C-alpha cells in the first residue's frame, strides 16, 4: 500500500531551531550563524568583530569545528565566553547541538551570540540552528565563481562579506561578476568589502551589526 506522508526531512531539526529562535527573541539576544569555506577568514573576522563590540555589548561565541579547539582558543584569548562543539567529522552544526550547548551560557546577560559554523559552503546552509540570520564570508582568493556554484548559501544569507580585499591587486578575482551574481541571487543582501589583515571596511560591518543588536534589544 502507498501511504501519503508529505513530511519535511528536516522537520525535527527545524522544530528545535524554531524553539531556539523563540528563546533568543524572548531574551532579546541577537544570534547569527557565521558561514564560509575553510580559510575564508571567519575566525579572523570574529576576532576583529569581538574586539570592536566587546566593550559595549555582552557577547558569547559558539565554535563549530570538526575535531579541534583551535578557533575556540583564539576567541578565549580575547576574554569572550566561548563554547566548543566538535562535530567529529560532521560537516555542519544542527539545532540539537546548539540546544545542548546552551545550558552553559547565561542567556539573561547576553546581547549577542555568534555561532561560527563548520567551514563549508554546502551543508551548513541547509540546517537552521536558531539563528536570526545567516552571514557568509567569501574570501576573494576563492574565486568569483563561488556564488553560482553554491547558490543556496548566498541566497539564504542576510549579509555577505568579501574578505581579503587587500589581495585584489595580486589575483584575477572578478569582483564585479561576484557582486552581480550575489545580488541576482539575493537582491536584498547587505554586502561588505573587508580585509581583516589590513583592517579595512570593518567599521561599516560592525556598525551594521550594532544596528541589528539594537533592533533586537528593543524587541
Amino acid at each position, binding site marked *: *500500500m502507498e*501511504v*501519503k*506522508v508529505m513530511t*519535511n*526531512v528536516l522537520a*525535527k531539526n527545524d522544530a528545535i531551531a524554531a524553539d531556539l529562535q523563540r528563546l533568543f527573541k524572548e531574551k532579546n539576544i541577537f544570534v547569527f550563524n557565521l558561514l564560509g569555506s575553510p580559510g575564508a577568514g571567519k575566525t579572523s573576522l570574529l576576532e576583529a568583530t569581538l574586539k570592536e563590540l566587546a566593550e559595549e555589548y555582552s557577547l558569547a561565541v559558539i565554535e563549530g569545528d570538526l575535531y579541534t579547539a583551535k578557533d575556540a582558543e583564539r576567541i578565549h584569548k580575547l576574554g569572550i565566553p566561548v563554547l566548543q562543539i566538535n562535530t567529529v567529522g560532521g560537516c555542519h552544526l544542527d539545532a540539537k547541538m546548539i540546544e545542548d550547548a546552551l545550558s552553559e551560557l547565561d542567556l539573561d546577560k547576553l546581547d549577542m551570540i555568534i555561532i561560527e559554523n563548520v567551514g563549508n559552503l554546502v551543508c551548513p546552509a541547509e540546517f537552521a540552528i536558531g539563528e536570526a540570520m545567516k552571514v557568509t564570508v567569501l574570501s576573494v582568493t576563492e574565486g568569483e565563481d563561488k556564488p553560482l556554484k553554491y547558490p543556496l548559501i548566498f*541566497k539564504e544569507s542576510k549579509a555577505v562579506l568579501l574578505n581579503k580585499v587587500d589581495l585584489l591587486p595580486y589575483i584575477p578575482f572578478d569582483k564585479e561578476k561576484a557582486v552581480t551574481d550575489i545580488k*541576482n541571487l539575493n*537582491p536584498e543582501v547587505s554586502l561588505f568589502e573587508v580585509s581583516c589583515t589590513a583592517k579595512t571596511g570593518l567599521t561599516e560591518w560592525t556598525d551594521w551589526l550594532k544596528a541589528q543588536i539594537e533592533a533586537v534589544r528593543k524587541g
Partner: protein
Amino acid sequence: MHEMSIAEGIVDIALDTLKANEGHVIHAIQLKLGVMSGVEPDALQFCFDSVTKNTAAENAVLQIEMIPLCGKCLDCDKEFSVTDYVFKCPHCGSLAISTITGRELQVASIDMD
C-alpha cells in the same frame, strides 16, 4: 556529506510511518528534491543504501523526483522559471521574488506492506 544525515532523516520518517500503519516492510520511498535544496541526489542514494541496512527498509528503493526552481513576482504576480540563479522577474524586472519551488526536501509517500 550532509547527505548522510538527510538519508537518516528520510529513513526515520519511513520507519515511523511504517510503525504507525502497522506495516512490516518498506518497498519504496518517494522523495521530492528541489534543485536548490543543496542535496546531491547521487550522494543521497549512496547514503540511503548504507543507512537502510538491517532495517525494514533494507531493500527499499529511494525514488527521487527533482523539482525545478520557480519564482513568483510579488509585484506583477506572475510565476516564472528561475534560470542561472537570477531572481529577477522576466516580465516586469522586479527584484521582489518569492521562491515557490526548488527548495523541497520532502518525503511525499511510502510504499509498504
